[in-house]
């Protein structure tokens, strides 16, 4: 039983990272109905930005107290900001011109952007996995034989804080309202005086910033990354977004945690589960799409014609 609860904790930490990435997918899909394939790579970029900050600050060993908090804040803010900017640039460069083109066109540029980003990261940090300095003290809380590490708590808390603030931002602020309006009906929103381009750029900014935050926690949690990391994580996060109901923010969170749990439990209990974890996650995706395409929390909407 302890093993089960241990996997539960691991799954939730894994799921926290997927959830943060899934938020970006779901926001972008909600507003322009595009699968932003480059999003997973923006997440990897976030880890690399975190690494760059740590290197610039000369962090090499474990930190405590104020320096620790300072480094965390700086790394999170810098990687969120830079990832946000990258996201906006991607939208401006590759998607905006194709907003009214056949659906195939922006999907293809999205794949292209993903390849470009991966290659840039490969040229920047090389093709092999890159370690990050392990600066985060990791005392484990022992709850009846189940160890909950400080890193797990960091991942889960950050994911929850981000989701709550995003939800508040979207439901309470004026820009959030503009986003919801644009998602509902772009033309009508424009007639109401909403600047569509700014609103969509804002969506990319926030979504990619969340991927940056995910990149930061993943760097802290795993202590390593490589240029191709975002491909698989992106696919799983997208699965999470679909599972939760695409376009739905709490749904993306829920989906992320569910996918993380499924992966952790499968790894533990299915023989050779580690090798098959991708196969299992994608099977979940296919099953959800067939039996409940609106997702767990999404409402079934008629297709926009």
């Amino acid at each position, binding site marked *: 039983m302890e093993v089960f609860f241990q996997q539960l904790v691991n799954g939730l930490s894994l799921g926290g990272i997927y959830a943060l990435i899934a938020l970006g997918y779901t926001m972008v899909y909600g507003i322009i109905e595009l699968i932003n394939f480059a999003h997973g790579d923006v997440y990897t970029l976030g880890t690399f930005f975190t690494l760059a900050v740590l290197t610039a600050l000369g962090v090499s060993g474990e930190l405590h107290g104020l320096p620790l908090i300072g480094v965390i804040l700086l790394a999170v803010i810098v990687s969120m900001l830079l990832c946000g900017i990258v996201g906006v640039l991607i939208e401006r460069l590759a998607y905006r*011109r*194709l907003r009214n083109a056949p659906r*195939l*066109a922006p999907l*293809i540029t999205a*794949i292209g952007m993903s390849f470009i980003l*991966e290659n840039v990261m490969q040229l920047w940090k090389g093709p092999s996995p890159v370690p990050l300095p392990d600066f985060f003290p990791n005392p484990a809380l022992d709850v009846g034989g189940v160890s909950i590490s400080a890193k797990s708590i960091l991942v889960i808390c950050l994911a929850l804080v981000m989701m709550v603030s995003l939800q508040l931002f979207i439901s309470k602020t004026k820009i959030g309202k503009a986003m919801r309006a644009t998602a509902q009906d772009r033309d009508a929103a424009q007639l109401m005086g909403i600047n569509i381009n700014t609103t969509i750029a804002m969506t990319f900014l926030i979504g990619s910033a969340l991927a940056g935050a995910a990149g930061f926690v993943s760097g802290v949690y795993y202590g390593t990354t490589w240029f191709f990391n975002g491909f698989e994580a992106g696919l799983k996060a997208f699965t999470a977004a679909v599972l939760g109901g695409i376009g739905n923010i709490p749904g993306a969170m829920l989906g992320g945690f569910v996918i993380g749990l499924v992966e952790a439990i499968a790894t533990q209990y299915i023989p050779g589960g580690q090798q098959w974890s991708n196969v299992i996650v994608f099977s979940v995706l*296919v099953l959800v799409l067939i039996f409940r395409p609106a997702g767990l929390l999404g409402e079934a909407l008629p297709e926009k014609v």
Partner: protein
Amino acid sequence: MSATVRRRLPYLALLLLPLIPFVDRNNSHVDFLANAGAFVLLALGLNIVVGFAGLLDLGYAAFFAIGSYSYAMLASQQFGIHIPFWIMLLVAPCIAALFGVLLGAPTLRLRGDYLAIVTLGFGEIVPQTFLNLSQYTNGPNGISSLDQPSLFGHSFGFSATPYYEVMLVLIAIGVWFASNLQNSRLGRAWMAIREDELAARHMGINTTTAKLAAFALGASFSGLAGVAYAAKLDLVSPDQFQFNVSVLVLSMLVLGGMGNIWGVIVGSLVLSFLNSFLLPQSTNLAHQIGLTGVDFTNYRFMLYGIILVAMMLFRPEGLIPSRQRKAEFHEALDDPALEAQEQSEYTSGAA
């Protein structure tokens, strides 16, 4: 001589293609052409799915893997089964098509972008399955020393020439098949679905069957390519069929012109040439003039990415466009409403 005959005369030059190995005795050139031929076949097959039917398949390499592995498992020492190459050329496309149907049946009801991600997932699952089932596939080492094809008692050996000739025949059949498909009732149904699925359905087209047919027929081409490629390489391993192969074939389509058979062939030849000759050669050149640090082959994926983005932005119909597809892409891009919007954006930016 009628006008039609005269217009078709240039195609007679194609009859000279089989003679290339006898003129150019450089085996590495012929080897390159034989490999490029496999990719032409792949591009022709993906063109049916993406170009004709307008379904974005991002896991096309999976069918290539299935074709290659079926040859490797049914014509080698692996299980002691030795089905002749020529029979496998008929069997493997059927196996690949079967998997096309298996993947397509549950997923083709999905909208285009969901389909893209499901096929992407499928493209991940298949090589991983071959990797994990190591008791059957030798895992990461793959299956080697496959049966050499032989014709009238002569084994193909390790020369690239017979494989090149086989590729030419397969491509000729593929082109014939694809162009007939395009003009068939099914081909017109695909075009209708691509332009407006809802309208097509209301015109009485069974869209699910038509899309399934596109998936199966497209997959069968890669089964064919897989057999020929595996036999030529004498080896299959899971890392030959990663996501970048699917994207490479997609880039060939986008570059050449989705939906146009000749465009697709040109696109795949150009990219194969870039990959196998231009990038390594320019790297050599750079090394000779003292730039030892550069390796242009590392930029390969960047190049695919740039091709995909730049073509979609500036010439979505490809280098050699299909007339209908060009119209479809430009109908949307030249939308006056969008232009007005861009205009107002520039003016407000200036203010």
